[in-house]
């Protein structure tokens, strides 16, 4: 029987908790209480999770964090459940669905709840920015509601096993996972912060109201709030190539979630597409998880990642091919290989340079794109800024957007690092508390200090692109 669970790891120890039994298409399967349904199924070797609704194409895990719905299945008779964020429970019945799925069958009408909450500040997103915003607003007595769709707080920090760069006072040398634990504990210990995990903020309504729902707890929330801090982060970008939707093609972040959060190997032999920091760092972590990374291809003429990271994977024998890209994925129902091709100076494939690489996984790391949905619904002015990853909100230096009372922090404000997201979260949290009249001169002074620290983090040649991007949007 296939078991892709990682049992030995140089950094991580996987405490999987109690063993559970569940039923997948009539067969009894084994999983653990720390796993999601998708993680348990993936560990058993399943690649084909669903078929697409129009073209009936096989699909599998693509984002692993509840963004894309390519892992939707029928769970206990209910179709379209994103199994990558659905915690595994004893006796769960899981089936694959065709296309959109049949209507729920034999479901007993559940008790549903409607809750109306009133709060000072609503923070959407429990990653480094959202957690920091909540902590710094609550510090001054603001009542905060913090919403996150995932079962666990921490956003994408909970899979960052590498040590952070930056200046000594900003957690440089500390692993992301440890920073996450610290922030999560602070939030959970704070009486002013109400935490709603497994809860999706799904829309903005006038005036200053957030609609949210927890399918898990059968609860619909109407949250009336004085201020909103959007820390919704980003989604992984994808690429156009033949069969780019074949199961086994996934975001580098998805591979990272599977191996570092759930301790499940994404595959045995992988190719990484993109040699920026994410691509190279995840490639290294794949090697740590016992996955063979056959190569990294990069369309640009040079490697985008920091030299030390790139040097490390090269030392471990992973070739980085610049001016190369992926042309197609191939395989029957799942990835069995990738065709790569060399590019010319005008980014065009050079005929005759194609070659096939046998892999069972293709990880894509071509950048991230801010998740602006609810901001846009609220009428916040957005601008396309390539340096910041795509459409981002115009803002003032207190991180307030063009709509009074709505603030931004973290990747949604522009793709950067966890360290800068933390600083932005602090500024947004402080600004919301100050603008409500809860915090006085000491908070203004503290905000000034944080702003200076943030400036330090963005100094130097690596911050140049970000500084250029910010000039275009810090205009209010």
């Amino acid at each position, binding site marked *: 029987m296939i078991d892709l669970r990682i049992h030995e790891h140089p950094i991580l120890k996987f405490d999987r908790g109690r063993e559970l039994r569940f039923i997948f298409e009539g067969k009894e399967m084994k999983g653990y209480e720390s796993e999601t349904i998708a993680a348990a199924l993936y560990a058993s070797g399943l690649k084909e999770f669903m078929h*697409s*609704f*129009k*073209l009936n*194409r096989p*699909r599998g895990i*693509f*984002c692993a964090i*509840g*963004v*894309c*719905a*390519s892992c*939707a299945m029928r769970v206990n008779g*209910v179709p*379209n459940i*994103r199994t990558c964020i659905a915690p595994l429970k004893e006796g769960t019945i899981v089936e694959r669905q065709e296309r959109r799925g049949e209507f729920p069958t034999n479901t007993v*009408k*559940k008790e*549903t709840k*409607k809750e109306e909450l009133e709060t000072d500040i609503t923070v959407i997103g429990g990653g480094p920015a959202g957690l920091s915003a909540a902590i710094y607003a609550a510090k001054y007595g603001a009542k905060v509601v913090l919403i996150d*769709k995932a079962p666990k707080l921490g956003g994408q920090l909970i899979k960052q096993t590498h040590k952070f760069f930056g200046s000594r006072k900003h957690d440089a040398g500390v692993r992301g996972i440890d920073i996450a634990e610290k922030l999560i504990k602070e939030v959970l210990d704070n009486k002013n912060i109400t935490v709603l995990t497994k809860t*999706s*903020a*799904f*829309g*903005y309504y006038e005036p200053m109201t957030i*609609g949210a*729902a927890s*399918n898990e707890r*059968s*609860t*619909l929330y109407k949250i009336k709030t004085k201020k909103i801090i959007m820390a919704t982060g980003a*989604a*992984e*970008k*994808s*690429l*156009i*190539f*033949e*069969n*780019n*939707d074949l199961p086994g093609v996934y975001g580098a972040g998805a591979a990272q979630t599977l191996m570092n959060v759930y301790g499940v190997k994404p595959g045995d032999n992988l190719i990484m597409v993109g040699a920026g920091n994410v691509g190279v760092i995840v490639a290294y972590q794949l090697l740590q998880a016992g996955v063979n990374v056959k190569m990294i291809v990069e369309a640009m003429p040079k490697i985008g990642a920091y030299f030390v990271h790139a040097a490390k994977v090269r030392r471990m024998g992973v070739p980085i091919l610049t001016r190369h890209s992926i042309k197609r994925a191939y395989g029957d129902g799942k990835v069995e290989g990738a065709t790569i091709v060399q590019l010319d100076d005008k980014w065009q494939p050079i005929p005759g340079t194609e070659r096939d690489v046998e892999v069972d996984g293709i990880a894509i790391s071509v950048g991230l*794109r801010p*998740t*602006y*949905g*609810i901001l*846009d*619904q609220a009428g916040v002015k*957005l*601008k*396309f800024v*390539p340096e910041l990853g*795509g*459409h981002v909100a115009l803002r003032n230096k207190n991180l307030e957007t063009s709509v009074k009372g709505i603030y931004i922090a973290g990747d949604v404000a522009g793709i950067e690092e966890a360290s800068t997201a933390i600083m932005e979260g602090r500024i947004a949290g402080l600004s919301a508390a100050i603008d409500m009249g809860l915090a006085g001169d000491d908070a203004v002074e503290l905000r000034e200090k944080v702003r200076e620290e943030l400036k330090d983090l963005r100094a130097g040649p690596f911050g140049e692109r970000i500084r250029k991007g910010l000039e275009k949007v810090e205009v209010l």
Partner: protein
Amino acid sequence: MDNRIVCRCMDVTVEDIMKAIEEGYTDIESIKRVTGLGRGPCQGKTCVPLAIGIIARATGKSPEEVGYITPRPPVKPVFFELLADEEVEE
């Protein structure tokens, strides 16, 4: 059959978008309406950046001119029973 997928939720291919452009739709909001792009459960998180690139290259417009689409509520899947449940009047 084009096997280069732009919108995973709604199965929109590169060819579908090129066809829409040939028919005269050159902004992303119109292309959303004719192809279904970005109208699935994820509300455009993966496809919009890809589509912006394709449309910009094919039309010569800048990404800013191509525009973006407004993700509609619910931006995350919500059980119907939560939204449609009837309030019982006392």
